[in-house]
C-alpha cells in the first residue's frame, strides 16, 4: 500500500526541462519497457488484489477502492495479448487519469523516470495493428526501446461484446 506521490517533486524538474522534452514514467512488463507521460500519473501502489468484474475481457482485472472511489484495473500484459499476469505483492498498479476517468494499470515494476526529447520519438513500425493501436510511438533510452502507451486505446474495448 505504499502510495508514492510523484507530482510534487516532479513539477520542479519539469519546470527546468525545456519545452521540447517529455518526462516519462517507465515500467516493465517482462523484459520490455514501456512509458507513459508523467503528468498523467496520479499515484503508484502495490498490488493488493481487485474485485473481479463479470462480463469483461480478460485484461480487466477488476476494481479497487481508491479512497472511496471505484477504480478499474487493467492488466497491461493481458492487454498486449500475453495472457494474464499472476500478480504478487511486488507487482505495481500505476493509477493514471485518462480523460476525466481514473484507471489503474497493472505492471510488473516501475523502473525509472526518463526525460526524452520529443524529436527522438519514432513512429511505431507499420505491421501488426495491435502495436500501432496501443503505442503512440517509440523512444530509445540507454539503447533500450521504450514503447509509449496510448492510454485511451488500452482502456477501450473492455466489455465482452466490445
Amino acid at each position, binding site marked *: 500500500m505504499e502510495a508514492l506521490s510523484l507530482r510534487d517533486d516532479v513539477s520542479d524538474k519539469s519546470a527546468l526541462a525545456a519545452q521540447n522534452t517529455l518526462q516519462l514514467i517507465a515500467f516493465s512488463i517482462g523484459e520490455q519497457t514501456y512509458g507513459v507521460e508523467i503528468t498523467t500519473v496520479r499515484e503508484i501502489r502495490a498490488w493488493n488484489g481487485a*474485485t*473481479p*468484474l463479470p462480463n469483461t475481457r480478460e485484461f480487466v482485472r477488476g476494481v479497487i477502492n481508491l479512497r472511496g472511489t471505484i477504480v478499474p484495473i487493467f492488466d497491461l500484459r493481458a492487454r498486449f495479448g500475453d495472457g494474464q499476469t499472476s500478480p504478487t505483492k511486488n507487482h505495481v498498479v500505476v493509477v493514471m487519469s485518462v480523460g476525466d476517468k481514473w484507471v489503474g494499470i497493472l505492471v510488473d515494476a516501475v523502473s525509472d523516470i526518463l526525460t526524452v526529447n520529443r524529436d527522438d520519438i519514432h513512429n511505431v513500425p507499420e505491421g501488426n495493428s495491435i502495436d500501432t493501436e496501443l503505442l503512440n510511438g517509440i523512444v530509445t533510452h540507454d539503447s533500450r526501446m521504450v514503447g509509449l502507451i496510448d492510454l485511451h486505446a488500452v482502456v477501450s474495448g473492455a466489455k465482452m461484446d466490445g
Partner: protein
Amino acid sequence: MSDLDDFKATYFDECSELLTELEEQFAVIEEGERGADRLNAVFRAIHSIKGGAGAFGFSALVGFAHAYETLLDYVRDGRVELTDDVVVLCIRANDIVADHVNAAQSGEALPVDYGAEEKARFDALARGETGGDDDADADGEMMDDFDIDFTPVMVNLGGSMAEGEAPVEDVFESAPMAAAEGQWEIRFTPHRALYARANDPLLLFRELAALGTMSVRAVLGDVPPLSDFEPFAVYCSWEITLVSPGLSEVSIREVFEFVDGDCDIIIAQAGMVPSLADIGFDISEAPAPAVADAEPDLSSLLALTEEEVANPQEPVAPLADFIPEPPAGPVGAQDSFEEAPVLSFAALAEEIMPAAPPPAPKPPVAKAAPAAGGGESEEGGGRSVGVQSIRVDLDKVDRVVNMVGELVITQSMLTQQMDETLRARYTELVRGLEVLAQTTRGLQDSVMAIRAQPVKSVFSRMPRLVRELATKTSKKIKLETIGENTEIDKTVIEQLSDPLTHMIRNSADHGIEIPEKRLASGKSETGTIRLSAEQAGGNILIIVEDDGGGINRERVLQVARDKGVVAPDVNPTDEQIDQLIFAPGFSTASEVSDISGRGVGMDVVLSNIKKIGGSVHVRSWTGKGTRMTLRLPLTLAVLDVMLVKVGDSPYVVPLSSIVETMQCSRASFERVPSGGRVLQVRGEYVQVIDLGQRFGLATQVQETDQFVVLCETEGSQKVALVVDDIIGQQQVVIKSLEENFERVEGIAGGTILGDGNVALIVDVQGLRTTHLHQNAA
C-alpha cells in the same frame, strides 16, 4: 453584475415555485372550486412574478403579466365572471407566463406578438364587463395602456443594467393622458412592520408618481414629545394628492400591493372627504411644539409639515435619517398592540367627519411602536407564516449525505467486528454500539428527509403537457394525479421529469384513441391518464396509466422482428412483447409510432430510470389501456443489502428485491427446453440464475445444498439467484462504476465494504431481462 445574477437566479427559482403554485391552484379551480382564497393566491403569484420581472427589466413578461393580473383583479372584484372559458384562458395565460419566464431566463427572445391574442382577450373581457360602469374611462385606460401606467422600478446595481427599459428614477411628474380629470387623495400611514420588511416609501412614491401628477405632504403630527419618543417607532405618515385623468383606485391600490397589511391606506376621490391637509394640521397641534423645542433635527423635519412640500423628493431625503434601520427591536408586547392599534386614518376620518375633536394620537402610537415587532406576525396573517424554510446549496446537503453514508458503513463495520466472545466480554461496548446504530439510523433518516421532496414538483408540469398534447393530437384527455405529496429524494425527482414526460407523451399519443374511436368502442369521449405515486417498502412506485387502446402487440412484434430485436423463430409471450417497447433502437422506430404501436423515446425512460437504480414495467390490456410502473429507490445514497459470496468475490443484493433465502440441492433445479433451469418454490416455478455461471466465476459446485436468494423483479416476477454463500445483511453506500469505467451488464454499481474491498451490486432486474434475451435469442 454577479450580485444581480444572484438576484436573478433567486428570482427564477421563485418563479418556478410560483408557476408550480399556479398550476396547483388552477387544477383546483378547474374542478369547480372558485373561492376567493384561490383567486388571491393566483393573483399574488402573478403579481410577484410581475414585480420581479419589472425589477430586472423583462418588459415583455411585465406587459403580459400585467394584463393578466388586471383581468384577475376584475375577476376578484366580480366584475368579470369566472366562467369556464375564462378559466381556460387563464390556464393558457399561465403557460404563456411560464414561456416568458423561460425566455427571460435563457435570454431567448419570444416573438414580439407572443401572447398578444390572449392579451386582446383579457382586454375584451375587461371592457365587456365594465363598459357601463362609472369608472369606465379609468378601466379602459388601464387595459389599453398598461405599459404606460405600470412602470416597475428597475433594480440598478452599480449601473450594470444592460437590457430592458431605462430605470424610472425620480419621475415625479408625468401626466401622459388626457380625459376626465381625476384627483385622488391618499393617506399613507406605514406601520413599523413595513420598514422591518425593508420597504422604502420612496419606491412607492415613485410608482405613484408614475401614475400622474403628485404632491406629497409629510404628516409629522404624531411625533410625540421627546420624553415619550421611541427611537424605533414610526411617527411619520404622508398625504398624497395624485392628479391623473382616468386614474382608478385599483391602480393606486396596486402600488401598495406589496405593503398591504403593513400600512394603513385611505384612498378617496377629491371632494369626498374633508381636506386632508386640515386634518393633518389638527392632529399635529398638540404634540408638535414640544418636539420642536427639544430637538433641532426634528424641528427641521417638522418645518416640512408647515409648508406644503412641493417637491416630494425633499421629504424623502430626511426620511432616510429619520426612520431608523429596521431594528432588531423589542419583541413581545403583542397584546398591547391589539389593545392599541396604530391610529388609522380611517378611524380618524370617521371621527372628524362629525367635527369631533381628534383623539390624542400620542399614547396609542407610543405604545404601538414597540409592539410592532411582535405585531408583525399578526399583521402578516395572510402571508406564509406556517412554512419556515431556508435555501441551502444542494452541494452542501450532498456533502452531509455522503458523510452520513460513510458513517453508516463504518458503524455497520464496527458492529460486524463484534463476534460472540467480544459481545460476551464487553457488554457496555455492545450497548454503546447499539445506541450508535440507532443514532446513525436516525441521522440518516433526517438527512434523507432534507433531500426528500414531494413529487408534486414534477407532477405539476404534466397538466400543461397533457393540454398541449391533447390540442396537438385533437384528442380529449383528462389527467388525474394521485399521491403527489409522496416524497422522494431530490436527485431521483430531477431524473424523473424526462421519463415521465416521455411516458405521458406516449400514453397521449399512442394510448388514448381519438374521440370518435373511443365512442365507437363504448368508452367516454375523454380519455384519462392517471399519474400516481405511492411508497411501497423501500421503493416509490410511479404509475402512468391510460384507458386507451393498449399496445398493439402484433405490430410491435412485427417491427421487432424486422429490426432483428427478436429472432424470427422465437415466440415471445405477451408480457415480453410489451417490454420490447423499451428496447434500444425501438425509440427511433417511427413506423411504430406513426401507425399505432408504442415506442417514442421509451429507451430514454429505461436508461434514465436504470441510472437511478429503478426499473420500469409495462402491462397492457388490449382495448382497455396500458399501465407503466416505475419502481424507484427511496434514496440513492444508502442501500440495505444482503452480502453474498460468488466464487471468491463478494456481491451484494439489494434487500428491497429479496423475497426470501433458502438452501436447496442442485437436483431440485429442473431443466426447461431452452436449456435454462427452473426451481419450484411452493408450487410456483421460478427461473434460476446461477450467478457464478452468469458472471463466469469459478464456483464450488456443490451437489448437495446450494444457497438460493429468491428475488422479486418487476411485475412480481420472481427469479432465484444461486450463490455460494450468504454472509449477512448490511448497509452500503452505492458507488458508481461508470465514474471511472463503464456500465457492466448485470451489475448495478459497486460499494466499499468495511474491510476496504469493493463488492459489486447485483442488478437483479437487468439480469432477468438479459436472461430472457439470451434464452430468446
